[in-house]
């Protein structure tokens, strides 16, 4: 499934993509291609990529290829999905402890579509943090490890 999504393999590519994608939500999936949950998420991403092509650009990033980003976003669980708009990191309140990224896979395609739409609308209105429309039951649960940050 991740064959159909564009991949970024080095920090410079990621930088370029963040700086050049304009007026669209940028979705970066950090994870590994072989992981089972990543595969589920990749399937949802690739199936919705065409329908969302005017609102969002979706890219796959391997966590091992850009350790700078992995450290910066504190990615401990994969897959983690980070959203940008016009070079600005978008935060979303999912009801989970971490607003900077979405951890895990989406339950349905529709959840992902709704989330992208809410991010897009919020960004168009100038909001840098939006509230997720996904039912909190469908958000994967994980433990956030606090290590004296």
């Amino acid at each position, binding site marked *: 499934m991740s064959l159909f999504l564009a991949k970024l393999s080095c920090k410079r590519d990621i930088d370029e993509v963040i700086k050049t994608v304009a007026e669209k939500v940028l979705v970066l999936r950090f994870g590994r291609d072989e992981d089972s*949950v990543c595969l589920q998420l990749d399937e949802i991403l690739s199936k919705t990529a065409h329908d969302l092509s005017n609102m969002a650009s979706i890219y796959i990033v391997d966590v091992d290829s850009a350790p700078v980003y992995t450290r910066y976003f504190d990615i401990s669980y994969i897959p983690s999905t980070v959203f940008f708009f016009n070079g600005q990191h978008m935060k979303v309140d999912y009801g989970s402890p971490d607003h900077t990224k979405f951890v895990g896979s989406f339950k349905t395609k529709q959840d992902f579509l709704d989330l992208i739409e809410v991010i897009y609308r919020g960004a168009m209105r100038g909001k840098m943090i939006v509230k997720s429309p996904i039912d909190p039951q469908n958000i994967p649960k994980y433990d956030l490890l606090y290590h004296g940050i």
Partner: protein
Amino acid sequence: MGAFYCAICRQTSFSGKAHIFGKSHQSKLKVVLVKFLEKVKEARRTIKNPQVERFDCTQHKRKCWCYCCGLEVERDVTDGDITVLFGGLLEHMARPDHRKGTHTFWWENKADPKLRDKFIITENEMERFKTEVAKALGSFEDKEDGLIKQQATHIRAQEQHRQEVLQSLIEPKAELELSNTEGPCNSVDEASSSSHFRAPGSDEQARSGRVDQMVARQWAGPGQGLTFIGYQDSSNSGNVHTGAIPPWLQEDPNEGRSGTMEQAIGPSLQDFLKQKEQEKLKKLPPNRVGANFDHSSQTDANWLPSFGRVWNSGRRWQSRHQFREEEGQTNRQKRKRDQGAEGTKKPNRLNSDYSMHCT
């Protein structure tokens, strides 16, 4: 004497009360009374046996014309849910002013006095009617309750059937799912707890709750099954939570190498700006003046009419003509000078130079 309108014949008669004894009036009166009597007879029948029914807005709001009082009266009595048929008519006919009206009607129209009493309802009859109505209402409500209970049991049976079908579908599916999930999902615990739940039995609420729990457990599976890739130590550099500089805004150690790449990226920035301008242009109305102006076409000097004189009077073509003449002269002079210079002057100069040098 005077104009007198008879409501039964629907005519104005000027002969006073004489027309009442005439044939036409009496025959019309009979017809009217017969029709009215039919309705009253039906109403009387319901005194002993009142008909109580559920309110039906199409049929139960009928009105009746009482000839005696000259009023329209509602035939049935209703409170929105239940109706007593002919109740309105009976109530009206029991009233004292209806009695008076009936008497005057009989006197005015000289109708048959035997029929008169049929159109009045005495108080005793009214009392009887009321008691009968109370009884009828009671029995009607009992019947309605019975119907409602029947419907309720039917609905409950349907709901049970549906739950059973759902159960039978979920159970084999849940067994498959539980056997497929990996270690971190506590599948063993799930299997044991769900089997515990199956034991207590057939309470409907517990069943629907169980279904929800099973569905929730199936989805929580991936959440617990996320791969952990290790604690990201960002104590040196800081991360997004501590507000460090994002990597895409940081200076890249590889940028020395990418200097050439930067130059190659240059035009793309120009393209980007051009694209932005074009988008702005797209928002302008397409039929504005000069929309299809070709900015890249070459123009010569004759594009602008630059021949206008300021202090001239006369026609425009004259000024154009003059301008062209002057242009033509200067062109010819220029050409001549050039040609002359080439042909005559240069050799002279040369000769003179040579001569100068010689001597």
